[in-house]
């Protein structure tokens, strides 16, 4: 694995003493010349016609939408001179409520990815999209097969209806990690597929079964917000029960957690359901109890708690669990009267349309168009290659060239969501208008463009989306509501109305099959929290994002419990061979405390061959077949290095991140006073006058989802360094999420960034004063003054300072994403979190121009804006009546490494958990 793709090759130069002196003089001159350029060297290029909303240098915010697996996510796009540079969740959109997810933040990079496909091709020759569109318009009626991710867009739905009138249309909605099982489960009990949305704001007891609902899924950000709102220690604090085979972000903030193989969850749910009064046949209960063994007690405790909280519970089941488990959970919901909204699914065909297997078997598929997915990679068992070869015309439409491109006759570059018009629905049905924030960068086509060509419609995507929303409304009357919808990013009153459906239980046989005794080791495949099903593998930010649990970057591993690893005789990074009925793969092992026994989790989306960034990163787990299967595990010879950003998870007996229980809060809280406040110091006392800034982070509601980490990368032009450099400890992230595991398996996520110490150890070791303190309490890093001694990094007890070992900055397309308000650093300088000083100074400048003080809440850091649970708050130390002000007075507050006397401006709130009291 080389890093040539990341690092520029350094020239080799042989130098004599005389040359060295020349170079020295020349170097000094060049260095200095970089500071001062001659007049007329650069250009100033004004608009020919300036857009009315444009003010030079001031970002313009547009509301738009992203789509993932069919569901819409409302975003606000910051554009600098028509260049989108940053995404944030749209507060008005019900799926995000202003919060972010890591992938949502990272989508901005895809827009400028130099690996993006730029030209359409047909049979090995460059072709133009308009030419191909003409070909599609001229397509004679006949068999037509569309393979694409699930869709919720009404415009796409209408176009598909029109296509079906011309062609024998079959559509396969292909999402390797789709929600089909949940819909089938609903179908089992309600007779039709329904979206089941628990109301977390009314839930005292929340149960997550093999579900990472706080960090994953179409409403994860909104659910995390609702969940966190009930998390303040006190009478209304909810209790989270999690049973899962692998540690997940949701599991890290569980109050009661059981490590259980995913295939045993059916047994768990049967025992709970029966104890709560659901009529489950007795043989099933006995089989379930036999499956669970000693873990029955946990299930009984959970059942007691659910019964106590009758009418105020929520049960979330993971997407890969079989439909029967979903169905049983719905019966349990009904029995307990849990607050759930049942709505018609937002997707056009929630059950997935024609199965992809049919395409593989089809002798005469006709025209096959694969849109925005890579089924050759994600469904290797189907061997789609021959089917695509049999097609009269096979076309792949994608953002990048991938395995499916190679199997198709033609390829069309796909428009990025920010380059085209879309109208996806959120999971609750709310319609969002995704408007372009930039003109199409290449000759690209959107899904709507391709479908429109198939019906011979020459309208552009804007007209189609506009007319679809307008319906029969008169144009003049519609105009105002269209503008309002564009401005808000959502169309009001489009959420689906809850339906009233009575469940009936009728799947005893299938359930009995799930409870049959098993042998062998469970091989559980899971989505990657960073690269999803593989579609984000080209995204370097996501590849380098440390895994929330294992802290692995750039790749995947066979994740197993310490006992499983011991029985195999493997340690971290030893290669293991994993085999199922479908296939086998070899990859490095990784030991995870909190993983279930006899269960191995492997994340999907890695081991692709194209594009270049993804090539050879990690191991492809799709050949293993089903998501939950039995298989075998054996040690293979050799090891493979796993680049990780955190190697040690023990607090070593220190109070780095304290945890306390709600029941014992009264005894624990006084101890926190010893972890904050001034320490004796030899340093001169400083007077802090005027506005003072600070940050507070609540570790109770930090799930470790890492949205903040990517938001920081996007905002502050942070470099990606590649696997080799990460393994050397040179990852550049200003904000990392430290994870501590105590002996009981209790986990604390502690976002760690520059603490902006009032007595900062970095400042007094810098020989050139490149790091200094501002009067408003910021620890400043001055890149142009830094000479790279790294003394500050060495003296920083929090290890948050990052050094540019190489010139990681880019000057290709990717540079278009750079935030112009933040300096792009180059080789040889130190950098670190600045509390988003560009936003602070920006707010001050606005205040000066408007002749007022900086308003409370006016400065929001990038991480704070991204956090879906509101765990990160930033503000002025003197402010009143805000969440930040409340956190500054919270008795749980403490300062990290308080005993060192650094007096950090960043404070943490200790984690409080709410386990069920033993009777």
């Amino acid at each position, binding site marked *: 694995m080389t890093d040539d793709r990341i690092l520029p090759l350094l020239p080799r130069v042989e130098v004599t003493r005389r040359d060295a002196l020349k170079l020295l003089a020349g170097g000094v001159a060049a260095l200095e010349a970089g500071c*001062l350029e001659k007049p007329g060297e650069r250009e100033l290029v004004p608009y*020919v016609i300036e857009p009315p909303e444009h003010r030079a240098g001031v970002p313009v915010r547009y509301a738009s939408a992203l789509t993932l697996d069919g569901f819409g996510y409302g975003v606000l796009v910051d554009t600098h001179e028509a260049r989108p540079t940053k995404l944030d969740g749209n507060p008005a959109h019900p799926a995000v409520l202003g919060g972010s997810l890591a992938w949502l933040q990272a989508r901005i990079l895809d827009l400028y990815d130099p690996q993006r496909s730029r030209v359409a091709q047909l049979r090995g020759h460059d072709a133009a999209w308009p030419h191909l569109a003409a070909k599609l318009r001229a397509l004679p009626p006949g068999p037509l097969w569309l393979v694409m991710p699930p869709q919720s867009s009404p415009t796409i739905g209408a176009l598909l209806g029109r296509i079906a009138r011309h062609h024998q249309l079959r559509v396969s909605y292909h999402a390797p990690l789709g929600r089909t099982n949940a819909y089938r489960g609903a179908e089992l009990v309600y007779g039709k597929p329904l979206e089941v949305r628990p109301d977390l704001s009314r839930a005292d007891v929340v149960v997550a079964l093999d579900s990472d609902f706080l960090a994953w899924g179409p409403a994860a950000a909104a659910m995390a917000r609702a969940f966190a709102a009930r998390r303040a220690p006190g009478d209304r604090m909810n209790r989270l029960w999690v049973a899962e085979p692998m540690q997940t972000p949701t599991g890290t903030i569980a109050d009661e957690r059981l490590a259980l193989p995913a295939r045993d969850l059916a047994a768990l749910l049967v025992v709970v359901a029966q104890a709560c009064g659901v009529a489950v046949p007795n043989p099933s209960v006995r089989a379930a109890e036999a499956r669970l063994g000693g873990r029955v007690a946990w299930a009984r405790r959970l059942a007691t708690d659910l019964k106590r909280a009758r009418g105020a519970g929520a049960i979330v089941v993971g997407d890969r669990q079989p439909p029967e488990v979903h169905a049983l959970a719905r019966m349990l919901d009904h029995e307990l009267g849990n607050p759930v909204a049942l709505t018609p699914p937002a997707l056009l065909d929630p059950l997935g349309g024609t199965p992809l297997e049919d395409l593989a078997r089809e002798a005469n598929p006709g025209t096959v168009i694969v849109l925005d997915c890579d089924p050759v990679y994600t469904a290797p068992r189907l061997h789609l290659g021959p089917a695509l070869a049999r097609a009269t015309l096979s076309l792949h439409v994608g953002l990048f060239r991938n395995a499916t491109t190679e199997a198709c006759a033609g390829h069309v570059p796909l428009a990025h969501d920010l380059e085209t018009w879309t109208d996806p629905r959120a999971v609750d049905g709310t319609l969002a208008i995704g408007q372009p924030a930039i003109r199409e960068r290449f000759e690209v086509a959107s899904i709507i463009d391709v479908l429109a060509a198939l019906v011979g419609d020459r309208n552009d995507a804007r007209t189609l989306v506009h007319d679809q929303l307008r319906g029969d409304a008169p144009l003049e009357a519609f105009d105002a509501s269209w503008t309002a919808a564009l401005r808000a990013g959502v169309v009001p009153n489009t959420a689906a109305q809850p339906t009233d459906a009575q469940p009936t239980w009728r799947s005893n046989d299938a359930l009995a099959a799930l409870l049959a005794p098993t042998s062998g080791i469970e091989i559980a495949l899971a989505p990657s929290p960073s690269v999803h099903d593989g579609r984000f593998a080209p995204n370097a930010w996501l590849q380098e994002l440390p895994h929330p649990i294992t802290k692995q970057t750039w790749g995947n591993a066979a994740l197993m419990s310490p006992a499983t690893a011991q029985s195999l005789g493997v340690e971290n990074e030893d290669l293991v061979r994993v085999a199922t009925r479908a296939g086998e793969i070899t990859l490095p092992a990784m030991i995870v405390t909190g993983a279930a026994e006899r269960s191995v989790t492997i994340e999907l989306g890695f081991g692709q061959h194209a594009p270049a960034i993804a090539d050879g990163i990690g191991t492809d787990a799709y050949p293993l077949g089903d998501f939950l299967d039995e298989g075998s595990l054996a040690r293979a010879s050799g090891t493979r290095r796993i680049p990780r950003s955190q190697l040690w998870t023990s607090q070593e007996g220190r109070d780095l991140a304290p945890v306390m229980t709600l029941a014992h809060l009264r005894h624990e809280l006084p101890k926190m006073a010893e972890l904050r406040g001034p320490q004796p110091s030899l340093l001169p006392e400083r007077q802090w006058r005027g506005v003072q800034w600070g940050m507070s982070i609540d570790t109770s509601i930090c799930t470790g989802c890492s949205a903040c980490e990517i938001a920081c990368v996007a905002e502050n032009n942070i470099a990606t360094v590649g696997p080799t450099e990460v393994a050397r400890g040179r990852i550049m992230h200003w904000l990392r999420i430290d994870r501590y595991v105590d002996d009981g398996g209790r986990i604390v996520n502690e976002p760690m960034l520059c603490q902006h110490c009032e007595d900062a150890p970095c400042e007094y070791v810098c020989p050139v004063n490149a790091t200094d303190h501002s009067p408003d309490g910021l620890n400043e890093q001055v890149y142009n003054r830094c000479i790279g001694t790294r003394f500050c990094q060495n003296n920083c007890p929090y290890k948050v300072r990052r050094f540019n070992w190489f010139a990681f900055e880019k000057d290709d397309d990717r540079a278009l994403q750079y935030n112009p*308000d933040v300096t792009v650093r180059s080789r040889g300088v130190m950098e670190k979190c600045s509390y988003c000083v560009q936003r602070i100074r920006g707010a001050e400048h606005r205040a000066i121009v408007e002749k007022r003080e900086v308003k409370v809440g006016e400065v929001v850091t990038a991480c704070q804006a991204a956090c879906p649970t509101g765990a990160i708050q930033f503000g002025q130390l003197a402010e009143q009546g805000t969440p930040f002000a409340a956190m500054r007075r919270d008795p749980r507050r403490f300062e990290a490494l308080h005993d060192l006397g650094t007096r950090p401006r960043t404070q943490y709130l200790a984690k409080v958990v709410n386990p069920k009291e033993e009777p």
Partner: protein
Amino acid sequence: VITLICAPMIYIRTDYAGGVNDPVTQPIEFDHRHHVRDDGIDCVYCHDTVETEAFAGLPSTERCMGCHGQVWPDSPETAPLRASWENHTPIRWKRVNALPGYAYFHHGVHVQAGIACERCHGRVRDMARVARAHNLTMNFCVNCHRDEQKSRAITHLTTCTTCHR
């Protein structure tokens, strides 16, 4: 060795090296003297964000054409302007004053603080072709910031992140 290091450091700070008073040839022979003195057009008419934003703002071709569509509509001097308008290609002006990428300057706050344009730009109204009036080194900025900090009791004027972010 000391000479080798110091000589370029001194040279680079001279007005000569900084091109001070060196008029820059622009794609259009735009004469500030004529527009400001003869026509009495206020600076802010063209540099319209100078009082509020970081960038002073540069007029779009459309704004120039607002007058020059009728004033001198067929002069050879304004031909590049008309070409820009008709072909929809922007005018590529040469930048006279430039700061390095790690220094951030906000025109709006300086104007609000009563700093006259001349303080940094010189008497542009007297320039046929605009030239740099001062070498915009950190020394030039900080001298002023130090004085202002003393006289106005503003705490932040000389802290690093005022300009470097």
